[in-house]
């Protein structure tokens, strides 16, 4: 505790403890340097990276990458919370300190979309390489378990922002999204640059099967 306040004077106000954990919060850009100090300082000597995980504090808030460290010299786990901006989630890698962090970082990239700069192998770990979402973010909602959430019934793979809404423009009053107050002009559509938009299905001429892509 005393050592931590000496080494990390800036972060000293964020120190927090419970029965067997000491916690410190630092900005994400300095995470790798702080962890290097924690590992290499002979008095601190946190030689083992027990866990590295990302936490999403909601679409308007921030990400946190949480490292848990272990040392024989200290009776508590050390938790380092590195805050990362949600708009630009970038963080230096720690694979040069512990190469075992590689899979942790790949998992965080896969699930949360956090980019670790300097990691040689930042691929998706679980999802397929052409997958485009980040499933553990809080704005990725499950269709069934989140029945009382605002997104109840929405298939997450069919997210509204990826829909090609221009195909409804010609429908006029029949436009299924007009009453929902959704934007109907194509400029509001946040589409992937690679353009993974489905072709309009060839239903009868002049008719569009609106029930197919409509939220139930």
């Amino acid at each position: 505790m005393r050592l931590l306040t000496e080494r990390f004077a800036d972060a000293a106000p964020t120190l927090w403890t419970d029965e067997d954990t000491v916690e410190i919060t630092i900005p994400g850009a300095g995470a790798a340097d702080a962890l290097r100090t924690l590992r290499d300082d002979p008095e601190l000597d946190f030689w083992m990276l027990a866990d590295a995980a990302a936490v999403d504090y909601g679409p308007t808030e921030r990400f946190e990458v949480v490292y848990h460290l272990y040392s024989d010299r200290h009776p508590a786990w050390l938790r380092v919370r590195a805050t990362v901006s949600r708009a630009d989630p970038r963080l230096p890698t720690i694979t040069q300190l512990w190469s075992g962090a590689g899979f942790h970082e790949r998992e965080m990239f896969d699930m949360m979309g956090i980019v670790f700069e300097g990691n040689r192998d930042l691929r998706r770990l679980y999802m397929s390489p052409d997958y485009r979402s980040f499933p553990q973010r809080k704005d990725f909602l499950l269709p069934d378990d989140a029945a009382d959430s605002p997104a109840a019934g929405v298939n997450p793979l069919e997210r509204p922002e990826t829909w090609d809404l221009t195909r409804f423009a010609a429908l006029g009053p029949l436009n299924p999204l007009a009453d929902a107050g959704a934007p109907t002009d194509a400029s509001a559509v946040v589409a992937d640059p690679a353009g993974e938009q489905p072709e309009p299905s060839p239903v009868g001429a002049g008719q569009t099967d609106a029930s197919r892509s409509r939220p139930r």
Partner: protein
Amino acid sequence: MTATEPREGRIPDPIDLDAAEEARLRTAAGIAPAVATAAGAEYAGFEMVGIPDRPPQTERERELFTVDEGEMLVNMGPQHPSTHGVMRLLLKVRSEVVTDLDVVLGYLHRGIEKLCENATYTTVLTYVDPMDYLSSMHNEHAPALAFEKLYGIEAPPRAQYIRALVVELNRVFSHGLMMGFLALDMGGITPILYGFINRDEIVEMLASISGQRMLFNFFRVGGVNWDVNDEFLSRLGTWHSKQLRSIRDNEALLTENEIFRARTQKMGIISREQAIQLGVTGPNLRASGVPFDVRKAHPYAPYAELEFDVITQQAGDVYARYIQRIDELKQSMHLIEQIMDKMPHGPVQAQVPGIIRPRPGRAYAAIESPRGLYSVYAISDGGPNPYRFRMRDPSLISLQVMPTLMPGHLIADTMAIMASLDPVMGGVDK
């Protein structure tokens, strides 16, 4: 020759498209154009199939898919019987020798963390069971400890002893199976049968206490579901009286076996520094000479009151990891005896409401699973379900050793080395 061009003299596959049509479809679908396969694509009459038809995404992937003259890519899995589940190994080989290796995961990914974030604290303990399916009791133990810390309660002493008893029983059958799988992957069929006989006795015993054979759902926040009963105790007594002899019998099949030793000693050596650097934990770490055991390092109840040793090996090879499992098995038997002697009387479940709403906060709980450090980091926002539920599974990190370990070994030894790390795909893929 590119991977997609029909080869001269081969009957064209109906799926082969002409180049212009394929380029058009690729552009329409937003997929990058096909890249030409590297030199040495054709070797000894085999056609290269491992290279994906997209540009490499990372430096490491480029290195992996750059195939020199005389090298080729061999795909192992995802349905390979020896991969302990569905996992794919991509081997780059020069004749019989592995020069590089990539572990491809995700075939069993169920998104358990996400599911748990949408479940109540009580039901989380049922979701984590099928993760590492050879140590279900351990899977429940860490979340139960984390949630108790969040909620500010502690399990009654008797519940803590029952927990320790069932997790040690679970460790015994998990280690027993590892010995069997290791032999099976090298072609010996008998030890796995003994391993399963032993496992069956233990799971029947655990079924009599929890009601299920494999996914026990036995732990509760604040205790365990049931107290020990007569059937459990009588089964435990019968099993215990012959267990030490059966460990010795199983061991006699392998430990002194000439072929087994020839194939495991000085094979797949993880040095002490490498093991720390790569984040290996559990028996694999201790087999490399690092005496780290969560039960000693951060003792959770009731391990502070029990007496046991942290055993280490020095060699760090496949054989050392095997011997390490046997020694830990004996330690577990020693622990089970002590637990049965010391078990106090009293309730097995603390008073908790049906829907638990802990105060906002964070909790980290780590336990020693048969595969190493298994930890849970849970965040509460005051609601009925955890805001964030993170599990660190040791098998995933053990598997990461493979690309470091394999170069220079034969293809046939891949399975022995992997089995000695004892990964379980349910845990790796979460």
